[in-house]
């Protein structure tokens, strides 16, 4: 038998994707923006949604897949509730980003590209966050943490973990 697709899973509600696509008049020239908004809505890019995007925009599935896998900011697997981007660009690298990444890996128990077992954090490295003056820098859900130290990492992780407490 032919292998089944890797991400066969429960049906995904396509309504949110349709709303995004409609907001761009189903115009295929907005594909990247549509995928960005869809990832915002779903936390990642589920395969059934990407297949639906291809149908709605009259693109081939391989075209949508190519674009979705090209950009590092797109994820085809479910991510944690909070996305940690640790910069390993030139400036951050020179200021010890490697050690800080190890610190994060030690604290979270996951390597870059992985998500913690409780689904709280996804850790990823990036090549630049555009804030080299603050090096070394990391970003959690769009918030910058500059002149980063181990202490600041602990504080930041606690802050974001605490956010989850009320509705946990």
């Amino acid at each position, binding site marked *: 038998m032919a292998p089944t697709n890797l991400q066969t899973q429960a049906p995904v509600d396509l309504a949110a994707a349709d709303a995004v696509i409609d907001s761009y008049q189903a115009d295929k020239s907005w594909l990247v923006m549509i995928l960005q908004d869809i990832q915002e809505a779903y936390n990642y890019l589920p395969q059934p949604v990407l297949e639906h995007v291809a149908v709605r925009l009259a693109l081939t*599935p391989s075209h949508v*897949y*190519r674009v979705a*896998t*090209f950009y590092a900011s797109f994820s085809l697997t479910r991510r944690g509730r909070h996305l940690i981007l640790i910069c390993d660009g030139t400036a951050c690298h020179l200021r010890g980003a490697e050690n800080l990444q190890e610190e994060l890996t030690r604290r979270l128990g996951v390597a870059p590209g992985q998500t913690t077992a409780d689904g709280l954090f996804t850790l990823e490295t990036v090549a630049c966050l555009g804030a080299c003056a603050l090096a070394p820098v990391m970003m959690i859900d769009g918030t910058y943490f500059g002149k980063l130290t181990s202490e600041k990492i602990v504080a930041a992780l606690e802050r974001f973990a605490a956010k989850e407490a009320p509705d946990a």
Partner: protein
Amino acid sequence: MSDHAPANRKVKTVIDGREIEVARDTWALDAAAKLKIRIPTLCHHAALTPYGACRLCVVEVTKGKSTWLTTACDLPIREGLSICTNSPAVLAARRMTLELLWAQAPASEEIQALAREMGIAKPRFAARGDGENRCILCGLCVRACEQLGAGGAIGFTRRGVERTVDSPFGGQATLCIGCGSCLAVCPTGHIRGIDRAGQRRMSTWHTEMEMAACESCGALFAPLRQLEHLRPRLAEHIPIVKVCPACRRAKAAKETTLPARPGAALIRNTRK
């Protein structure tokens, strides 16, 4: 500017010291072929648009005082170009390209043969990955699918060192019609497929499909999906979707042979 000259205008060019006149914008590779000058290629196919990916067809171009290296497959011949296909710079660049391709696709016998032909005895660079790769990412299969096959059944995925050609989501290629164009054009033996037990299996694309049996002789001759793809593209009277090529030829031969009439000449001269 000469760029607005009519497309069918003839231009003269010099390739390896020999002059040739070709239609303006003829690809340099084709112009060289007319002079029986062979330039090695991997990502080139006459039926597909040039892409310039494999870089093996590199040549040295001179126009006026400037000389530069570029690919011949996508170089349109214009006025005043002089081309050298085997200068030391060309051979050095081509050799390096092939050595890198060898490291990229160490398992490809086609690349090994080309290397031997160019006098490269053994790989200089460490083989990438597990040494089993045959794909050089030239995109010929993607272009064949786009321009000859169903279109868009396969495509590039990811980026940089992780780049691959694959079916969408690494699963069944839903648009694949099993035409085999990708397999036929693949220059490095990467793409695999086989017909077995009534199925066409495009192993590389994780895809398999049912074959159709010839109405006349029963032989399995084409994937059903390919016939369905062809059906709306054929004139109604052509029964191509039912019989295999061999039976079709036999039938056509029968139909086009004139019935024997006593005394009838096959060719008649209408003028005395």
